């Protein structure tokens, strides 16, 4: 009942976004949905259109085609948008001579929020000791914290962070991952972009992989890894040549990946064990290969990267 009220649903729905910057097609039919209660990773190489998509969602850039809705509403129609969507696009977007608290204060006042809320959020973000210092002197990590505090001012059900791990020390990255998970656990929809899949591996529930302005894959992390792993099987054996003969004979593609390891495609692990046992080939280990998220990502985005590299060299050749 509540979710049928406009503006109450914690979702981002992006559909068919298309945007051209001069000769470059920045967005080419970008479509995905961010659901409440989950961290959605938004990954892709630099220039894949992640930041542009986020700016379109926030009404900062206008798309040539398509729509981006927050809980079913266009951003421009939200009365106090910071109570619907909190975002951190660029932690450096600060007036250097303005004190941290004053930065939050004007934002709060623009939304009809009180100074008390500002002090509350300063405490939540652990910024008490620097609240009355000029933001220009902040480290990147402190700026990120200030940016997150700004995003949380209106206690919004939808959050968007663009490359939040950038410039953070390892300790900060761990904190950030936990924080993102806790936000999702509260029922918020969280969209986090990154160009490094590793940062999202144990944070995101859902991954939207983008390249060349469009979605390449939109799956849960588990599905993505399974897909990338394919049906490859790793075999450890001292009799490499014999094993290769037997397995190739059975129709598999076999590659030597180490002095005593082979990677086998086209057969299940069980079938490999049977074949090797039947052929009396000794082996110490047969296991299904498990791809890392990074590998899956590399595979998915290879085209996009290659395209960019080609375009780049063509550019350079001119």
């Amino acid at each position: 009942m509540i979710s049928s009220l406009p503006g109450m649903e914690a979702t981002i729905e992006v559909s068919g976004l298309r945007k051209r910057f001069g000769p470059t097609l920045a967005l080419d039919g970008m479509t995905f949905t961010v659901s409440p209660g989950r961290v959605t990773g938004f990954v892709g190489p630099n220039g894949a259109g992640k930041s542009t998509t986020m700016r379109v969602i926030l009404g900062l850039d206008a798309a040539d085609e398509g729509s981006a809705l927050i809980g079913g509403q266009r951003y421009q129609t939200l009365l106090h948008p910071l109570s619907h969507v909190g975002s951190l696009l660029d932690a450096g977007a600060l007036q250097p001579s303005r004190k941290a608290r004053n930065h939050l204060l004007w934002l709060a006042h623009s939304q009809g929020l009180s100074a008390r809320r500002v002090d509350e959020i300063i405490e939540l973000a652990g910024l008490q000791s620097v609240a009355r210092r000029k933001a220009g002197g902040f480290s990147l990590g402190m700026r990120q914290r200030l940016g997150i505090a700004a995003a949380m001012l209106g206690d919004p059900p939808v959050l968007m962070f663009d490359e939040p791990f950038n410039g953070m020390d390892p300790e900060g990255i761990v904190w950030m991952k936990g924080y993102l998970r806790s936000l999702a656990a509260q029922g918020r929809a969280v969209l986090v972009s990154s160009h490094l899949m590793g940062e999202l591996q144990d944070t995101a529930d859902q991954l939207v992989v983008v390249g060349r302005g469009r979605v390449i894959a939109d799956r849960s992390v588990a599905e993505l890894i399974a897909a990338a792993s394919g049906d490859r099987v790793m075999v450890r054996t001292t009799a490499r040549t014999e094993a290769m003969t037997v397995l190739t004979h059975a129709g598999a593609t076999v590659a030597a990946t180490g002095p005593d390891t082979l990677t086998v495609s086209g057969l299940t692990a069980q079938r490999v064990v049977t074949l090797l046992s039947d052929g009396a080939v000794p082996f110490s280990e047969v296991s299904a290969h498990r791809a890392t998220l990074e590998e899956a990502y590399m595979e998915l985005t290879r085209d996009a990267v290659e395209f960019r590299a080609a375009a780049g060299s063509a550019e350079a050749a001119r």
Partner: protein
Amino acid sequence: MTAATVTPYRSTHPAGPDRFAQLLRAEWDKFRTVRGWVIGMVVAGLLMLALGLLAVQNSSQCGPANSNSPNPPTLSGAACLPTFPIGPGGQAVTDSFYFVRQPLTGNGSITARVTSFTGVEAQGVPGSNTPGLQQWSKAGIIIKASTKQGSAYAAMTVTGSHGVRMQYDFTQDIAGLSGSVSAAHPRWLRLTRSGDTITGYDSADGTHWTQVGTADLAGLPSTAQAGLFATSPQYGVLTTSFGGGTGNFGPTLATGVFDHVSVSGGKHSGSWTGGTIGSPAGFGPNGQSGEGFQQADRRFTVTGSGDIAPVVTGPGSAEGGTGAIQDHLIGTFAGLIAVIVVATMFITAEYRRGLIRTTLAASPRRGRMLAAKAVVIGLVTFVIGLVAAAIAVLVGDHLSHDQGLYILPVSGLTAVRVVVGTAALLAVGAVLALAVGTILRRSAASVTAVIVGVVFLYILAVVPGVLPSGAGGWLLRLTPAAGFAIQQSSPAYSQVASAYLPPDYYPLAPWAGFAVLCGYAALAMGLAVFLLRRRDA
């Protein structure tokens, strides 16, 4: 965990009503929390004050009045303060002329025929006087409340080069017959009093009379002075050069010859008394006045020097040591430079840091955001400008008095218009700078554009000799610099020959000039909102 089991989060800070006041408050927070901007605005006020008050300098010295000692001590400062009679309208006036008069009680009229009008200029070197009338030399008939300088009057007069005029109470001037006077082309003049109303007539033949105008001289005593007069303002040749002007001034005399002089109605004595009103002009090599009158048969020859007119300021005016209240606001352009810098930064700093995205994400209705910014920067500037202008005028008046500089009195309403107008000029300048900053999005380019477009053009037009005066005049009509016209405190009088140069006088009326500036600001704001809405942030 699937999405279906999740309870969507709801903000604990539900949106209240959307109010423009919230945007105003946010923009005010932004302004006041950047110390550099606050300091910049205070500097703007201080610059205005400092330049305005430093400009109050009068190096001229004077001898004591009424001293007969051969080596009078030299005086300076307040002792040199010239005094001007105050006319019925409250303005400083010159009221010096030769008056051949008789009292006239009750209603009546005076008529005279002018058959000759000639003049002479003193060139400063004995024996080098040259004949010639000034364009506003005057001879004619007059009814004046008393012989006191500054008292109400109405006159019908022939002039050096503006034909017959009816003038009254110093500021009013109505054209009558055109052409100059000669024996072959005499001019008949008549003034008729009825209560407080005096009507002027002229005629070429004494038979066919034309009414020129009426003057309502409220409170005219029942016994007024009626008679013949002659006066002639000093000549002036003004040469402007870069940064200043040099003038060559000297006294002149005008002589009118009258016949068919008659006073009728009412109660009048019938005998004529001659005398100068105001101090004798000191015409001639030995300081003799040269003024006076002769009566032969029924012919009167009246010679006078001086003027019956409002006092005007600036180079080329008859009176040295005078100023106007806007002289204390000469620092406005400097304050405006500081205001332009701050107002531009108010938006371009956001573009420079990418903060504009945070701002627009918080206030997606971009036009309203810019409007809130404009209101905040405009109001801040207005308040600073108002305080600085009010102090400059008040303290400047005081300093001027001590320095022996006479500041022309103006009505309270005019003073308020000049002070509030100066604050408004600065505020509109700030809004213009904000708009240009939004359009160009770069601090240096925007600041340069607005300073050139407003302040630099103003300086070009105002500093003498930089531009031909015609070109300067057009700048002050067509460019945003026209807004400075709001500071003009006294009008230019067509019946007083003077250069009427800025910054004391502007080609456009005060509010018209201000409207030109507002037009530019409105145009720039319109374009800024259009672009702000259209462009990606």
